[in-house]
């Protein structure tokens, strides 16, 4: 069972457009296609999971079977055949790895090529990485250094075994199993993802980052991430994602849960660059993701920053439940769609505690024939005395064949709360393009410059090391949209 062969040529032709479109030849362990209780038992057994975890999965599966696919988002795609997907694929390794040196060199090369060296010496100083390849975590760097201060950063499959109490307490506590169709599916079949625990009073000494890679054909990636910050803890976490260029669509249905205690802060950044499909809309990842954070403690803060450039369909609403008094939720988003891509993304801010504050800044950029929808909900519950929200949604259109939509829902049940919403739609101006080109920048450089300017408020929220990457990515994903 070997994945498709990668040739130098393939890499070369794909790098022009989608730089990460190559696949890796590596021996894999796969479960048979399709989904039933046996597959779930298989996954659970592969991971040496305790019984409670298996039971939780089976329960989720039962519920999933009775659920309906959501259809309210402004995206359209052919029905997904859930029996035609592999739910488990893992690089074959002979034994348990004790150190990074034992990771399959092919895998190390893959990550090297993706610009994520897993070798600690070569790494960006100050960033610890967990690399998830198809269904399993293949390497986590800087673990010892982190554990010196009590920070746990490991694959969730390990956390289930080594820190069962924490996992049991929090898994599903922010995103209930039956929150929606894909969360139930994920709960049944999730394979790996990251686990982060920041103990009381600890400021995590480095950026944590997970790098997701789908390699295998017809394989779904169902990762699950859980981050907990105890009182006065702080962590900045970043996820990045890519997938090979393939003709068929692949499903990615992740669940991310964040829990922030008193005065703690979690900053979660995403640079999503799954394969978007070709110009005509063939292939690409279906990115159906549920991300939610709970500000459980007073004065806690959760910030979501996302730069979404990939996937053929994105369906994603990173949200905050602001329970603790004075807690703060933030959502900064750049969503770029080109060619036939469709994105329906936004956030939900649920104000429960007193004096809770939320800020939403969304920048949608559409080019080609793409569809880009911002869907946001601000809910001020009765208890949310003096709550505040500010929302700003700006859309930028490139060309005449794309479209942008803004769908805000505001439910306000308190009279002294203040909710502000601003929205603009503009076209990339000929005047600005001409000005830049007069200075010698070509149409693509000029567009990328202007678009990056348009996204500035969001980009400045990204950790430094990734802002530069994200800027380049914006340029790449708009290639061919002008001139």
């Amino acid at each position, binding site marked *: 069972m070997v994945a498709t062969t990668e040739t130098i040529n393939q890499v070369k032709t794909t790098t022009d457009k989608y730089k990460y479109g190559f696949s890796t030849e590596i021996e894999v362990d796969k479960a048979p296609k399709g989904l039933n209780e046996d597959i779930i038992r298989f996954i659970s057994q592969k991971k040496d999971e305790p019984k409670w975890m298996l039971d939780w999965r089976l329960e989720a599966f039962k519920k999933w079977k009775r659920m309906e696919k959501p259809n309210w988002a402004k995206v359209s795609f052919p029905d997904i055949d859930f029996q035609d997907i592999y739910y488990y694929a893992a690089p074959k390794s002979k034994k348990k790895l004790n150190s990074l040196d034992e990771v399959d060199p092919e895998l190390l090369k893959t990550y090297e090529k993706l610009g994520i060296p897993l070798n600690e010496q070569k790494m960006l100083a100050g960033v610890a990485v967990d690399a998830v390849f198809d269904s399993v975590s293949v390497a986590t760097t800087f673990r010892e250094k982190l554990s010196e201060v009590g920070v746990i950063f490991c694959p969730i499959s390990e956390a289930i075994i080594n820190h069962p109490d924490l996992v049991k307490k929090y898994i599903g506590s922010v995103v209930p199993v039956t929150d929606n169709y894909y969360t139930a599916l994920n709960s049944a079949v999730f394979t790996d993802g990251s686990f982060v625990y920041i103990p009381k009073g600890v400021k995590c000494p480095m950026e944590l980052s997970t790098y997701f890679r789908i390699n295998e054909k017809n394989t779904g990636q169902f990762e699950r991430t859980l981050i907990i910050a105890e009182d006065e803890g702080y962590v900045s976490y970043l996820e990045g994602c890519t997938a090979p260029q393939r003709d068929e669509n692949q499903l990615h249905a992740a669940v991310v849960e964040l829990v922030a205690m008193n005065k703690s802060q979690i900053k979660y950044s995403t640079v999503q660059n799954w394969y978007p499909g070709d110009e005509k809309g063939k292939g690409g990842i279906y990115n159906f993701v549920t991300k939610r954070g709970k500000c459980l403690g007073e004065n806690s803060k959760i910030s979501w920053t996302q730069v979404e450039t990939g996937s053929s369909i994105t369906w994603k609403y990173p949200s905050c439940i602001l329970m603790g008094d004075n807690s703060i939720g933030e959502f900064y988003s750049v969503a770029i769609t080109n060619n036939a891509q469709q994105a329906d993304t936004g956030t939900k801010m649920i104000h429960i505690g007193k004096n809770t504050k939320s800020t939403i800044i969304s920048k949608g950029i559409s080019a080609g024939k793409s569809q880009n929808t911002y869907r946001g909900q601000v809910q001020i519950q009765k208890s949310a005395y003096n709550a505040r929200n500010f929302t700003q949604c700006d859309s930028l259109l490139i060309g005449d064949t794309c479209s942008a939509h803004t769908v805000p829902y505001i439910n306000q049940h308190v009279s002294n709360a203040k909710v502000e919403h601003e929205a603009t739609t503009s076209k990339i*101006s000929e005047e600005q393009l*001409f000005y830049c*080109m*007069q*200075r010698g920048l070509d*149409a693509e450089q000029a567009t990328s*410059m202007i678009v990056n300017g348009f996204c*500035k408020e969001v980009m400045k929220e990204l950790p430094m090391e990734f802002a530069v990457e994200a800027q380049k990515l914006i340029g790449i994903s708009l290639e061919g949209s002008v001139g």
Partner: protein
Amino acid sequence: MPILEIKNAELSIDNKKILKGLSLSVNEGETHAIMGPNGSGKSTLSYMLAGRDGYELDNGSITFDNIDLTLLSPDERSNLGLFLAFQYPVELPGVSSTNFLREIFNSRKKYLGENELSHLDFIKYLRKVAENLSIKDEMLKRYVNFGFSGGEKKRFEILQMALLNPKISVLDETDSGLDVDALKIVSEGVNNLKDKKNAVVVITHYQRLLDYIKPDIVHIMSDGKIIKSGDADLALYVEKNGYSEILNEKS
């Protein structure tokens, strides 16, 4: 040898003829001034030269160093060494001035096959060039032209000119909006860039600028054509008597 040669250029916008057979020839080392009433087509001429979308010739030709310009995109023309200081510089919200300048500078270096400067080296170089134009560091931290005063915008145009070191520069009313001191600084900046190999075309309404940037030839433009050319004295004449006599002479 002419760097720039425009022959019988005709151009219309929205089916309205704006340029009606304009010819202009600029040689290496020369400074030209173009004056003319509002709406006579001066800015249109500058956009046509720079290759703006919608400003294509109906008739006539433009060559630059013997290359047919009409086939080239704005960036290709810029790469050849054509620079336009805009009458109304365009704001680029969110784009930091320093980054923008570094990008255009390095892209020019790349085109010329010269070494690009690292971030730090560029900053050092930029500081020096900016200082000569009395542009403060603080301004370079702001977004391109965003919230700049009229005079700041004009100075920022000349800063870009200095970084790109073009072969021919068209300065469209760069003097308007400048205070007396700034006018002097900007003019000195332009003069310092001047050598035997390049050329400058200044579009202006005021003789004042020409006290600093001394033109070899002054053209009067009216209704889409150059109707009279002469030496620097022609500008003095216009300053004193206005356009009416020259216009009447022609009709």
